[in-house]
């Protein structure tokens, strides 16, 4: 909580500074016919990988109604001129550059023209590049040309425009370490998760009926969070199955997930003190193709008629293909996935569904392992930050809209925007 406040204050200070910075620059008109650009500069475009240059100059009253033609060359200051862009006064001002206020002076009275050399040259810029630039100013019949400037475009090392993201990341990491390092000290509370209480019931019933239990981990690969969460739940389910001396079958889509699951199930049987009941054919590989996997698991379910089916992990269209066949043979079905658009199908076709994050919490809830529980606390912290930010920012914006605080919306937008 404290961290959020610091974070907020930091940004608010930042923002008040920049609104002061937007001061007005006005210069008296020059009487000569040759139009000059004030503070005309050629630069490297900041925070990019080295494909663009940047031209800036200040707006002066004599530029009203003028047209600019920006000419660039990568050959020399004499030849190879290409017209990069042509625009009228008032366009292409610095506030139009898509960078946040803390990384770029977004002065409305300044022109800032990004020179995207990939487009200008119609070929990929591959290395550092020198360019020459001049601007033709057309005002009625008066055509003036600036002197030729030159600059180098190069790859930069830090995306200052992504500073907002970096700060959030650092805060999350900090909180993560604080919470995790205190993990073992006290038993932390987790609220009840309805679907998980049904696991015992499902396994119990399967044991009574002498029928198998199916645990389907879905079509995720090991690096997906839902699959990792699924293996935790599998461990707990397998332990209970071993205790009840029931029979479980785990059909797999991904071979790596299968090898991990094998270890986990074996471990669970050992922990339940039934290592001799463990069989190698609990985990079976089906197919690494979505629909043939679904077809075969459907076939298995309709033939072996399990009393309980678990669908826990990452699922796509096969969610309903599996759950509906399970429902048709009257199995108790418990599902859990973080794929939002498949949740409706599990929810309607299964008896219990772990929705989104509940799946991640399931491992912690079942095992009560301090490390998992404390990670859950970090997640709760993240949600708290979200809820508070939405509430506070909304309120701020509403008040701001009422009091007509100009720039507030823009600043908040830039703080949260993805660059």
């Amino acid at each position, binding site marked *: 909580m404290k961290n959020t406040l610091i974070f907020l204050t930091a940004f608010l200070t930042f923002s008040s500074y920049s609104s002061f910075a937007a001061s007005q620059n006005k210069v008296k008109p020059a009487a000569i016919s040759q139009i000059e650009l004030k503070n005309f500069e050629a630069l490297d475009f900041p925070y990019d990988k080295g494909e663009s240059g940047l031209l800036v100059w200040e707006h002066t009253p004599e530029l009203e109604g003028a047209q600019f033609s920006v000419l660039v060359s990568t050959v020399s200051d004499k030849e190879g001129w290409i017209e990069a862009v042509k625009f009228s006064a008032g366009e292409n001002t610095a506030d139009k550059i898509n960078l946040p206020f803390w990384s770029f002076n977004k002065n409305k009275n300044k022109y800032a023209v990004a020179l995207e050399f990939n487009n200008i040259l119609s070929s990929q810029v591959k290395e550092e590049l020198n360019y020459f630039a001049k601007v033709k100013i057309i005002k009625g019949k008066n055509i003036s040309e600036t002197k030729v400037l030159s600059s180098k475009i190069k790859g930069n090392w830090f995306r200052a425009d992504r500073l907002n993201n970096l700060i959030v990341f650092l805060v999350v990491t900090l909180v993560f370490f604080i919470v995790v390092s205190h993990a073992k000290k006290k038993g932390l509370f987790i*609220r009840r998760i309805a679907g998980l209480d049904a696991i015992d019931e499902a396994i119990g019933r399967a044991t009574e009926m002498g029928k198998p239990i199916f645990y389907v981990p879905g079509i995720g690969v090991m690096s997906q969070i839902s699959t990792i969460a699924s293996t935790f739940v599998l461990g707990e389910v397998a332990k209970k199955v071993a205790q009840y001396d029931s029979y479980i079958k785990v059909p797999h889509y991904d071979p790596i997930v299968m090898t991990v699951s094998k270890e986990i199930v074996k471990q669970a049987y050992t922990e339940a003190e039934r290592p001799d009941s463990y069989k190698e054919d609990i985990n079976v590989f089906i197919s690494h*193709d979505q629909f*043939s996997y679904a077809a075969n698991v*459907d076939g298995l379910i309709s033939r072996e008629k399990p009393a309980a089916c678990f669908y826990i992990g990452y699922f796509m269209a096969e969610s309903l293909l599996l759950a509906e066949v399970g429902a048709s043979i009257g199995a108790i079905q418990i599902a859990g996935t973080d794929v939002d658009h498949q949740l*409706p199908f599990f929810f309607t076709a299964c008896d219990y569904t772990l929705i989104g994050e509940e799946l991640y919490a399931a491992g912690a809830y079942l095992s009560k392992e301090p490390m998992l529980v404390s990670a859950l*606390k970090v997640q709760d912290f*993240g949600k708290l930050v979200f809820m508070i930010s*939405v509430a506070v920012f909304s309120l701020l914006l509403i008040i701001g809209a009422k009091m007509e605080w100009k720039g507030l919306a823009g600043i908040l937008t830039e703080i949260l925007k993805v660059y």
Partner: protein
Amino acid sequence: MSEGMIIFGAWIAAALTLFLFSFLYKDNPFFKIAEHLFIGAGMGWYFQTIFYKIMIPKIWEPLHSGDPFKIFMVVIPALLGLSLITQFIPKISWISRYGFTFMMGYSAGMAIPVGLATDFMNQILGTIEPFANFFALSGWQMFNALAIAIGTICVLFYFFFSVEHKGAGKKVSNLGIYFLMIYFGASFGNTVMARFSLLYGRFDTLVNYSSAKYFYATSWILVGLTLYFVAEKLITSAKRETAE
């Protein structure tokens, strides 16, 4: 491809399609054939994709390019990949950790900043954005903006695990459930048309294959399947009678 092969193909396709559909009636040998063929074909399809899209251009060709740097850049991942295969030899299966850890580390590192940006910060922005010119909105739009903000907070509270949901908390999380229900219902209803279109596509193909051009493929196979199911029914009921 000759005309004959295309007609033959149509027969195969129509048969496989109908075999899979026959599962809707009940499990049967034809479905089992199609199902097992499908596993093989699915793996075969992936095998050839990996072989011609990865193995040849990304491993074989660089290895034979003679450029030491290119070879090095292929040997490393190939070794990491080969380490996975040690899974089959329990004694040295720990070597496979090298391959796993590479993939886990890489994808975990990629996931963090993008997750924070698009699904966290951007979502806050999306929720609060309408409030920026709140008083320029119509009453209805104001209501909508508030509904989204409040709804999102309630749903998030439903996922809040640190406090027991009772009293006022229970009400908030209950309200969250209503928003979830609307999402589920809408998402379900929205998918119906896409799935029906797919089925329409399959049926349309089957009808196409039942034309004279394909020698009535669909019709013949359908007749065959029906005969099988009728015969099977007669035989099982005859067996039951003799058993009685």
